[in-house]
């Protein structure tokens, strides 16, 4: 059984590689700013977009995209306005997102509610040809934005106050960060699913930083691990006939466990050397 023989598998594989590539690139900034759960929240909000798409009969990818970007602005607004109750306010938004998604999907005609599962945990068969064009375009856009603003995002994630004294617009960069996370969520929605997509942003980064010493090497290794986990997880899901989201995330967690074990003797040796 050759998995490349199927058109849907080819499309799913391309989508998986795209997610594995850009998700850790955004995740490395989120982890540095201690916003690991931001992607999770964005996934919940995007679910409302998917539910709305079912209800209104629009295409899920653009609808989810618009909803997630609105969510990104809202989250940054809440984070900025209410420093103390920030995490509670975010939690409210997250619960609202998932409740809205399920509600809208249930109200939609036909079997929309049951196909919501494919968006929650990913699916091999849902990546349509038109989707693929949109996904490639979104990934290219993310890469261009990172090429232009990546250094400023790095400075903000190191120390927002120093960044401000360097003349960097910290609030604009934080909002940009949230919007980029929203884009990654939508790109990963089809293959990994909205409930697990933030894992592919965070887990490869957590794995890479076990053995790296710099930001750039962490980002590079995280991308390699992200692509590996996506492709290996997708392939496994094809043969075992389970949704791809869980297998991709479990492979990523496997790389984390492996590198965490590997890091113990490396750290010991470094301590002896310095």
């Amino acid at each position, binding site marked *: 059984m050759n998995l490349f023989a199927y058109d849907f598998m080819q499309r799913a594989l391309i989508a998986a590689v795209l997610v594995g590539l850009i998700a850790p690139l955004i995740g490395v900034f989120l982890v540095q700013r201690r916003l690991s759960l931001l992607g999770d929240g964005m996934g919940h909000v995007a679910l409302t977009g998917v539910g709305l798409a079912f209800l209104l009969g629009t295409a899920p990818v653009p609808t989810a995209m618009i909803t997630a970007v609105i969510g990104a602005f809202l989250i940054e607004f809440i984070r900025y306005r209410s420093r103390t109750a920030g995490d509670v306010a975010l939690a409210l938004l997250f619960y609202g997102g998932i409740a809205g998604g399920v509600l809208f999907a249930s109200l939609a005609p036909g079997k929309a509610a049951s196909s919501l599962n494919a968006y929650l945990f990913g699916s091999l068969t849902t990546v349509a040809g038109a989707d693929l064009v949109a996904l490639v375009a979104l990934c290219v856009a993310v890469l261009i934005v990172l090429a*232009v603003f990546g*250094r*400023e995002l*790095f400075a903000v994630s190191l120390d927002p*106050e120093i960044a*401000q004294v360097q003349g960097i617009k910290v609030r604009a960069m934080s909002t940009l960060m949230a919007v980029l996370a929203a884009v990654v969520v939508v790109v990963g929605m089809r293959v990994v699913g909205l409930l697990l997509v933030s894992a592919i942003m965070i887990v490869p980064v957590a794995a890479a930083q076990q053995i790296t010493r710099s930001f750039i090497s962490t980002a590079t290794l995280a991308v390699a691990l992200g692509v590996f986990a996506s492709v290996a997880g997708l392939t496994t899901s094809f043969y075992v006939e389970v949704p791809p989201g869980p297998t991709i995330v479990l492979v990523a967690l496997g790389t984390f466990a492996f590198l965490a074990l590997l890091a113990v003797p490396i750290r010991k040796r470094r301590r002896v050397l310095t």
Partner: protein
Amino acid sequence: MSVIDVERACVEFDGDHVLENIDLRIEAGEFVALLGPNGSGKSTLVRAILGLQPLEHGRVRLFDEPLGRFSDWSRIALVPQRLPGTNSIPVSVWETVISGRITPRARFRRVGKEAKATAQLALTEVGLWPRRHDRLDTLSGGQQRRVLIARALATSADLLVLDEPTAGIDAENLTHLVNLLGELHKQGVTVLVVTHELTDIEHLVTRAIVLGEDRTGTIRYDGPPPVPASFADAVHHHDDHPHDQNTAPTGLTPR
């Protein structure tokens, strides 16, 4: 030309006056020490000057431009009091130093040879060039502070603001650091140092400003060092080597 111009600046935290009607003008080429006991508002004043702390009343001008319209931030470098601590993501010493050169103006340009050379020089000056590939958070507190100082030096700014730059730095590196600040001042850099410890830099300081304790947030003394004995409570001296103002400054003691 005034580098910093503060007029009637007031800052309140929950109704408490942290700064009250501060008037302060710092000219290009000055070496200013901002002194005062804990809680006297030193750091708050610096943060207000840099636009990190909103003012209740009053206004701030930087390089003769209102703070709100000031945009030439590459002329200012800040060494914060707070150390980076443990980063979530590994960040190397080199990446930290070169991050001082990141500005919106260089958005579409690559990091040039000149920037890298400046950063290398700065890191060499603080004696940590051999540690450039190491994770910042594997360095000691004093070493991390030297890295932050190198980041500020790498910017080639005209105004250097340092908040407690000598904290945690060992005697040998302290001498070197003090000489380095003197060298920069000689080259025309305006220096503003927030400190508890005037002894080490007193010979460089052209003007000492003491923020008060009895009436929090006001200027008690503003003039050349030494600070009069009546304000001595605001200036902490080394216990291990009592400082006599008539002897040679300790910072220049030859090794």
